[in-house]
């Protein structure tokens, strides 16, 4: 702790940490004090108007506070001054109303131009649908048949201090969103359950993910790299645990990646009929459970009394498999148990159902296969 405190004070003294020193790249953001300048037209416009505002405020602040400190020094009673008795002066009062108004009008011009850029969402090259879930993001490449969930990869052990925190603590996901350079990408953002907000600081993109509505934002950059963002609308207890990670790849690389994803989807569809063993399902199920269920139902399956029901010894987990699958596919209306039909694959649902039926002392002993889940879905 001392070492960090020392580094902090040294950092404060070094010129690079001055408030106005400008942007720091996403990777070396540890000592960052200012807004990142980012890599898109929108983020740079936001940064520029931010800096204009800082300078205007600095100048006004120096003048106003400077005068105030002069008064506090010069007109102290202890210096033997006697108070004057004047008040009201029409000219002064009109001036200090009109001058700020004029400054505001001057500020409004760049502010309007910058805002027009934010809203310039027309004519995209690529459309990506972004859906906020409690507590993960889903990305769908519209018209490409590619769709996946992006979830926090940091382990519960790291979060609860049972394992050392990695370099990318809370800034790493299972699958980042991938976009190409030099293409205008439009994000169509919506929410599945509560309101989330999708933020990538380096793109200057922050739009609320409201269930039932779509909001739009866009990004176009020529700088490949990994850009990390966050969910910025309170969405429940996992709010801090659903980061946004975007990888910008050169166009050719992106095409290759996209082709790979399509192939993966095709391959998955062809292997859905595979028979899994008991132990394979347990291993896979535990992994899925840790990612998607433990946030509410807890790692020990005991839930939180009064909010999230226990799965251990629960009649659903010990009852017929069909009912258990049904809960995951359909969710429970009016509760925070949402439908996982779109969030998890058939394999994942099968594995997690199987796991829940055979972990923590639950001992149903049956095997739930992906094909059972598919059959259930098709029978709907």
């Amino acid at each position, binding site marked *: 702790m001392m070492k960090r405190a020392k580094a902090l004070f040294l950092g404060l003294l070094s010129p690079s940490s001055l408030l106005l020193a400008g942007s720091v790249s996403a990777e070396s953001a540890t000592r960052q004090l200012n807004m990142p300048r980012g890599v898109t037209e929108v983020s740079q416009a936001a940064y520029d108007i931010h800096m204009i505002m800082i300078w205007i405020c600095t100048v006004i602040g120096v003048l*106003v506070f400077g005068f105030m400190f002069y008064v506090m020094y010069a007109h102290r009673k202890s210096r033997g001054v006697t108070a004057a008795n004047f008040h009201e002066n029409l000219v002064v009062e009109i001036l200090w*109303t009109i001058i700020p108004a004029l400054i505001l009008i001057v500020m409004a011009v760049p502010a309007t131009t910058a805002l027009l850029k934010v809203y310039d969402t027309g004519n995209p090259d690529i459309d990506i649908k972004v859906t906020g879930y409690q507590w993960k993001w889903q990305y769908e490449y519209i018209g490409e048949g590619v769709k996946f969930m992006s979830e926090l990869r940091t382990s519960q052990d790291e979060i609860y201090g049972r394992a050392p925190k990695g370099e990318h603590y809370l800034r790493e996901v299972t699958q980042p969103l991938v976009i190409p350079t030099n293409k205008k990408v439009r994000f169509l953002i919506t929410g599945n359950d509560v309101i989330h907000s999708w933020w990538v600081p380096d793109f200057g993109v922050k739009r609320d993910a409201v269930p039932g*509505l779509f909001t739009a934002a866009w990004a176009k950059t020529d700088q490949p790299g990994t850009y990390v963002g966050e969910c910025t609308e309170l969405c*429940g207890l996992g709010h801090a645990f659903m980061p946004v990670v975007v990888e910008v790849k050169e166009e050719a690389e992106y095409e290759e990646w996209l082709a790979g994803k399509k192939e993966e989807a095709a391959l998955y569809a062809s292997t859905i009929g595979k028979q899994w063993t008991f132990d394979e399902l347990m291993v896979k199920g535990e992994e899925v459970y840790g990612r998607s269920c433990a946030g509410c139902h807890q790692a020990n399956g005991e839930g939180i009394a009064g909010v999230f029901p226990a799965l251990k010894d629960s009649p659903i987990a010990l009852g017929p498999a069909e009912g258990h699958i049904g809960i995951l596919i359909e969710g429970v209306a009016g509760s925070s148990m949402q439908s996982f039909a779109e969030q998890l694959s058939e394999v994942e649902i099968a594995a997690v159902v199987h796991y829940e039926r055979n972990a923590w002392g639950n001992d149903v002993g049956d095997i739930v296969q992906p094909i059972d889940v598919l059959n259930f879905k098709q029978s709907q």
Partner: protein
Amino acid sequence: MAHGPSQNFFSRWLFSTNHKDIGTLYLWFSFAMFLLGGFFAMVIRAELFQPGMQLIKPEFFVQMTTMHGLVMVFGAIMPAFVGLANWMIPMMIGAPDMALPRMNNLSFWILPFAFTMLTATLFMEGGGPNFGWTFYAPLSTTYAPDTVNYFIFGVHMMGASSIMGSINIIATVMNMRAPGMTYMKMPLFVWTWVITAFLLVAVMPVLAGAVTMMLMDINFGTSFFDAAGGGDPVLFQHVFWFFGHPEVYIIILPAFGVVSQIIPTFSRKPLFGYSSMVYATASIAFLSFIVWAHHMFTVGMPIAGELYFMYATMLIAVPTGVKVFNWITTMYKGALTFETPMLFSIAFVILFTFGGFTGMMLSIAAADTQYHDTYFVVAHFHYVMVAGAVFSGTAAVYYWLPKWCGRMYDETMGKVQFWIAFIAFNITFMPQHFLGLAGMPRRYSDYGLQFADWNMVSSIGAFLYGGAQLLFLYNVIRTIGWGKPIDDPQVWEGAVGLEWTVPTPAPFHTFSTPPVVK
């Protein structure tokens, strides 16, 4: 001469209709809530001291942020200023009491019950409210714990209390001014409170409407805020902020009033522009009704709406600037002394102006895309709420306490408290600007390693700031019990106004015969 207070402790405080006793009740209640809300803040800062979850679980963390906001806004700051209004408005306008004394009693005694109920939810199955003090639907409806119904009822009770308190203040000021006390002769504290009271009467019913719609959505199958049933989650935000934005001025306008009383006293010079201060207050109140959606710049409004709310919001800088310039020119060529109330008032002017600067930055919609819902916003509103409302409330207590109890507080201890509070406040909240700009969202129970340093600094500042409040409590209790007795009605050399013409300590009944104001 009229009767004194009842000798029986319970009948004196439970059944009181005396504006001074009720003022005292409000002030002690609000301080208790301030300590409770402060305790929640300490829990939050302790958890955020280091990355990782150490002390509490994320679900309890969100309850803490929610309860901290609710208790501070509705339990600490608002009742504190109602308490000051109760004590001071009758004495400032030469009235014997408030116009509606029994309603005054009721409006106070609702509050302890409302907050007991709200706080009790923390111990219930499902836990307390966990959707932020702004309680956006559907997190606060479909996805809320069952205890949300207690929260809704609590908000209704607070609203009823506020509306009654406001009507009382309006009735008092309109009907009970001493002969010759025209509107444009009223002290600024009275002016800011009348305007605040009108804001309260206008927007508290809107809040009540919002929570009633929630209640219907949760329990009676309506879909006001559910898109699947034809409603709209964004509607909730519009309704909430139509209340919420005037609410922030409800909190700050009486603080403006306090500072406008204190600065002339310790400058020994009249307020520079009395009438322009009144007009500026009224303009701010008007503007507060037409800027609400600047809290929703990222919600995906059409660009025309966004531009309108941006321009309207920027306008607020003009009347606010007028106020700041007035305070400073009041000090100009005065004969300044720096007693504790003056120190807190000067800190108010500086730090509130700083919060105004960040407010202006936040009004720029394109930049707000980056600031929105980050610690930059948290820093901004703590500069205006804590360094604004809380500092001015503290200044008011030190300023009027000698008049209330006839004893002088310990000046050295007051100054020590001020300097600890001032420094600790800035250690707490200045780094939060950096955290926000660097990308840390608000209401996060845990954060990436790049935010570790400033969070630690901020937490240390918060603990210090919390400690300074205990010093404040001690100083106030010591003054009331053992302070040096004084009997000068004037108390402060430069003080002007009717409240300084009555004896010190202020007797139980003042102005039974109205004074004549020339």
